[in-house]
């Protein structure tokens, strides 16, 4: 996986099965010191659930510091929750969500898909998962029971959708404007979720 904005300003990370292939993904390595060597970074062992119906199961999340723009020390977290299921993980796509915290802003993205590879060579040959990359709006309308709903999602290049953004205690809202023949017909704040 590649974290950060890409190009030369990126951080490499991998998830691995410390017990060997098929034992279950339980650890991540992130090149936090960005020297191109994952062996001198502390392994990030995934915690296990201590309560509830998932007690004892892996909670496949980890946090790390990484670059963001011209700053170091942005806080990233990644939760590969699809790996927390019982039984060995299968190769292929697995859902994840991730967060970025920088200054007093926090971004929460959901519905990402990570492809698990069976070898480092295969992983490096595939497309990277780039966190904090470019995003685009996807806008659509739906009709149901005589009502029309306009929705918009801000998606990154992994297919993740911005679920919320916070600035301190504030939660900025997207603003929707509907224009007909160039004239504003409606302006409304949208809600996340």
């Amino acid at each position: 996986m590649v974290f950060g904005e890409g190009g030369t300003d990126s951080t490499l990370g991998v998830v691995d099965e410390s017990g060997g292939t098929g034992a279950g993904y339980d650890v991540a390595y992130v090149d936090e010191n960005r020297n191109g060597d994952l062996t001198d970074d502390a392994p990030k062992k995934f915690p296990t659930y201590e309560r509830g119906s998932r007690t004892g199961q892996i909670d496949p999340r980890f946090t790390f510091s990484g670059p963001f723009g011209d700053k170091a020390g942005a806080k990233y977290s990644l939760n590969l929750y699809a790996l927390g299921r019982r039984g060995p993980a299968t190769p292929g796509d697995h859902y994840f969500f991730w967060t970025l915290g920088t200054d007093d802003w926090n971004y929460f993205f959901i519905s990402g898909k990570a492809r698990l590879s069976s070898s480092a060579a295969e992983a490096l040959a595939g497309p990277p998962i780039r966190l904090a990359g470019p995003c685009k709006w996807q806008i659509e309308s739906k009709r149901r029971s005589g009502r029309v709903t306009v929705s918009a999602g801000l998606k990154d290049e992994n297919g993740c959708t911005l679920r919320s953004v916070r600035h301190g205690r504030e939660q900025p809202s997207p603003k929707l404007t509907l224009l007909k023949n160039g004239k504003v017909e409606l302006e409304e704040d949208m809600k996340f979720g």
Partner: protein
Amino acid sequence: MVADGTYTAKVELDAGPYLGKIAGEKELQLRR
């Protein structure tokens, strides 16, 4: 509430240092 018709939907969010002021637009046919 708006009448049925063709609209240009514009969405904008002032999303801070990561995304900045990010906007998008799409033409939508709104029919009930």
